[in-house]
């Protein structure tokens, strides 16, 4: 069965790019435009991986991670940040909140795919 990835970003073009890249490789991609919407979708779905932006309206990426990690179904799900931030302090904060990895924008499509494949182990 195809694995499901939740892509969270307030930028439609970013979501589109993620979807194009990952669905082309056989993943199911579910989109959400901010943290709050993502949390709502995540609760009703079995998701294998979350890709999220950091800076978003309503609920930002860090709060989203903290909320997700509270849900028993999301304790072990990899959560990867896609963000322009490369600040070490921010990275540390994300790590502490439970992020699995960090990809700095801009990145290449292949780069994203590689990371996803590696983390999902296929």
């Amino acid at each position: 069965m195809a694995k499901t990835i939740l892509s969270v970003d307030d930028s439609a073009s970013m979501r589109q790019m993620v979807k194009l890249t990952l669905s082309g490789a056989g993943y199911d991609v579910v989109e959400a435009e901010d943290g709050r919407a993502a949390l709502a979708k995540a609760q009703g779905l079995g998701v294998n991986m979350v890709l999220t932006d950091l800076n978003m309206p309503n609920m930002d990426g860090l709060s989203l991670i903290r909320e997700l990690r509270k849900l028993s179904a999301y304790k072990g799900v990899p959560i990867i940040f896609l963000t322009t931030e490369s600040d070490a302090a921010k990275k540390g904060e994300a790590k502490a909140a439970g992020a699995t990895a960090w990809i700095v924008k801009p990145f290449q499509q292949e780069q994203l795919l590689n990371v996803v494949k590696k983390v999902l182990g296929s």
Partner: protein
Amino acid sequence: MNAQTDPAQTFREEAADLLAQLEEALLGLEQAPGDHELIDTAFRALHTIKGSGAMFGFAAAAGFTHHLENAFEKVRHGDLAPTSDLIGVALEAKDHIRALIETPDEIDAGRGESLLARVAELVASAAPQAPRVPSPGKADPASGPATWRIRFRLAQDALVRGTNPLLLLDELRTLGNCTLVALTEGVPEMEDIDPTGCYLAWDVILTTEQSKATIEDVFIFVIDDAELTIEQVPAGTDKLGEILVNRGDVAAEVIETAASNQPRLGTLLVKDGTVSEDRLRSALAEQTHLREVEGAKAAAAPPPAAGSIRVPAERLDDLMDQVGELVIAEARLKQLVATSHDPQVKAIAEEIERLANGLRDTTMGIRMVPIGSLFGRFRRLVRDLSKELGKEVALTMAGEETELDKTVIERLNDPLVHIIRNSLDHGVEDTVARIRAGKPPQGQVHLSAVHSGAQVLITIRDDGKGLDRAGIRAKAEEQGLIPAGTDLNDNELFQLIFHPGFSTAKQVTSLSGRGVGMDVVKRAITALRGTVNVTSTPGRGTEITLALPLTLAIIDGLLVRVGNGRYVIPLSAVEECVQLPIADDLRHTGRNFLNIRGELVPFLRLRDSFRSTLAADPYQKVVVVSTGERRIGLVVDQVIGDHQTVIKSLSKLHADADSFSGATILGDGTVALILDVGHLVAASHAQELRRQAS
């Protein structure tokens, strides 16, 4: 890709929405500057444009937006107020971003730069707020930079699985000063090579303030199947032997044996086969890196516990006075000792001379401040003026660290304001005229300061239309400053603009053109014992150079004798000393001109000026002095020599003796007057003109 599946197209649409949101938020902020929601909206719009723009090939837009985003991040944190200035710039920047995204081919690069400069200016002007607490979570600030040795070898199939070592290396490079060595020792024989395999290993020597964990983070996705060691290089190692041992490439005993076999340790070890050439190369690179880092540290290390104390200016003046007295007393002592034969007294006198000179230099140094403090004030001036005049002008500076006597700096403010105003008002053209002339639409005014001997040269350069030679000449003739048709070189012509009442501006603007300005400049600079020099190329711009003495308190002078009086001529004005030919000397009537290498130089007999009655020296000497535009010879009885002079101002009683700018006390205790060369030159010129007229 069609529009449905091309993220770049989606981004364009998205950006248009975001920019509309940004504009709305900015306009809202103008009404309600404290509204956090609006600030957040503006910031996020910028943030998304930056992030997504960079993803989909809008690098220019992303780069530009990044700076604006930084400014708004400051607004978000309350470090910068969303003033109407900032909002004004941001609105213009928003239009620029739209242009960058939608019509990137019609972009004028200067526009973006000028917008960013304005943003930077606003950010800088708001900077000195509460001291920023270093953000927690960063590497321990007390630890300072450390040097790490990172050795990694990827799994042989890493490339096939999509790992790109270049990205890893690039990320490492962002962490700090980095030296890379690729090790090729793992590359197999040709027939064994798998073309997709990764055989290289890398040694990276990285000096960074980041923690080890941050470095490990870089390898987060390859760590499982890469060989990776990260170790700190102990401080203070820079011997190749130590490095090799520390790296575990060679055992310590081997080094000792090898080192005893001089000369080159590295070559020996490779020849022995103890160390591969690759390893040695890498160790040598590490050595170089360490030395560079140490060198940079030594250069950048701030002097320990350097503090500053504020002292009332009068105390400094008192100190300077006393040091002046000391220097004079020392000179007298030196003169006295010259006739003594007691070696012990001589030794003490030499010691005192050395100390007095040191004390003098230190005291002068106390009064020195960097000129940057003055230059900084002109940013605002240029900004306001360019707004008022509707011209686009960028101010650039160089040599802000150049030090100058504080008094001089204070008195430079007004002249510089006048010059910059004139540059903006008359020099730099408006945008339309500039484009028509094929110049960048944004004008440039460049301020620079540089030491040149005992002087500081301050240059104000613009890239405007240059001085109007014909206009200046016509105006000067109209005002009777020069007879019609006078033959003038550029320098003489340009000096006319410093004449009181001279102004060629056809219209009086609020800034300049009232005929005050340049003569004020000239007077102020002359009062500082400086000179003003102008060069100008039509259509290319004007350059005004102010040459100023480093300090007002001490000058290098040439000591001369006229009759029984001694006088000091400031050395900066002296061009040469020649003997007055007897024939010229005898010609007491008519005009006094001297032929110096084919050029006629008028001369002034100081004996006559000072009404000396003592018998004249049979061989009269001429000291040729210049004040920039004119040269004259001063005829004296004797040239005694150079003399460093502490200036004492004349008493109020003698304030109207304007041929003298001050006095000094000589080694034997007598007083010598300091000649005001500028005034003497002007006086002789006036005399000459009267003679021509009669």
